[in-house]
């Protein structure tokens, strides 16, 4: 066992902050909740009984950003939209990129972007897929001041619209202030 048992009930419009020292298993827990790692004990439940799979309602943004370097920004987003059965126009994608501060980068390959810009492109997916539950693993890393403000506004707007967020973030005072739950992982 990696960390001592934790329990969390997250309601709409709530944000939970996950913290713990390096190596306590924050990312492991995030990945397990996201569904890309097996839980050795415990479970994740979504209260809406109509939904069989929890993954349909969540989107995970982790350390591996998921951008394909050889594809352009617009192609990266179009792929994510299509693989999730969404129909989006080129103009919508362009507007989305512009809102992320990536105006004019539509036809730029993702490998040419800076680390912060890559993160912005990955954050665009959250807006594109519009899932109820956001799992954000250190989303502020690599973002500049303006980027951090932008992402913070997205998170508050998402909460206002009835969404929920589970987040790990170091040194983010405003996120700490926003958190309804604060979970600290302790080594088992």
């Amino acid at each position, binding site marked *: 066992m990696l960390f001592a048992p934790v329990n969390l009930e997250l309601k709409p419009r709530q944000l939970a902050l996950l913290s713990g020292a390096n190596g306590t298993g924050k990312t492991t827990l995030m990945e397990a909740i996201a569904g890309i790692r097996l839980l050795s004990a415990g479970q994740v439940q979504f209260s809406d009984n109509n939904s069989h799979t929890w993954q*349909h309602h969540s989107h*995970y943004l982790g350390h591996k950003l998921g951008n394909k370097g050889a594809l352009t920004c617009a192609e990266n987003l179009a792929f994510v939209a299509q*693989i999730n059965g969404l129909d989006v126009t080129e103009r919508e994608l362009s507007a989305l990129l512009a809102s992320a501060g990536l105006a004019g980068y539509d036809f730029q390959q993702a490998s040419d972007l800076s680390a912060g810009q890559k993160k912005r492109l990955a954050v665009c997916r959250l807006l594109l897929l519009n899932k109820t539950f956001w799992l954000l693993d250190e989303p502020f890393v690599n973002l500049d001041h303006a980027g951090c403000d932008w992402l913070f506004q997205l998170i508050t707007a998402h909460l206002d619209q009835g969404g929920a967020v589970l987040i790990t973030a170091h040194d983010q005072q405003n996120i700490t202030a926003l958190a309804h739950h604060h979970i600290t992982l302790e080594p088992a």
Partner: protein
Amino acid sequence: MRFWTLLRRDVLVAWRKKSGLYQPLVFQLLVVTMFPLGLGAGAQTLAKISPAVVWILALLSTLITFEHLFKDDYEDGSMDLYYLSDMSLPMAVLAKAMAHWITTGIPVILFAPIIGMLLHLPNQSFGILLLSLALATPIFSLLGAVGSALTMNLRNGGMLISVLVLPLMSPVLIFGAGAVLESTLGNSAQGHLLMLLGCLVLAISLAPVTTAAAIRINLE
């Protein structure tokens, strides 16, 4: 449709990266030039060994392209995007294997006559060579998917893929090279080609499910 979305993406990525496209062909060309040097032989000896050499080259040159089939997606995180989407995983595997065949298998098929010519393959065998490779290269891609998925989270998985996949490929080599050999002797290659077709059907039905299971094991 999701299948075509993933297929198109992989073909596009391979096209932009280029190296995956010509690597097998350069490999084949380099190795085939070694044969006359090593054998020091005339056209007759080369013609005799040509069915086997063309086939082994096609097989080995495909083998070196397997490593990145799933590893790249695993490392950049784009695998999570289709793994967590509504798309069924075996279907995603089939799309990726088909994209691999389009970007690696088809060039290998088209290049084989050139290799055959360099080795003085008898004229009457070129048709059978193309046909046998057309049946076999999709099998290569599907078997490669299994090996690639099993080793996607290893740093140096390339060697391990060969060890895992080559034994599975040996029947394909036997029937494929056998078909070409029969045709050089003027015999019918039908039996060998039908066996290849059987292998292809088996690979299409079993490999996607097996690969999906391998991905699940490695992710979870």
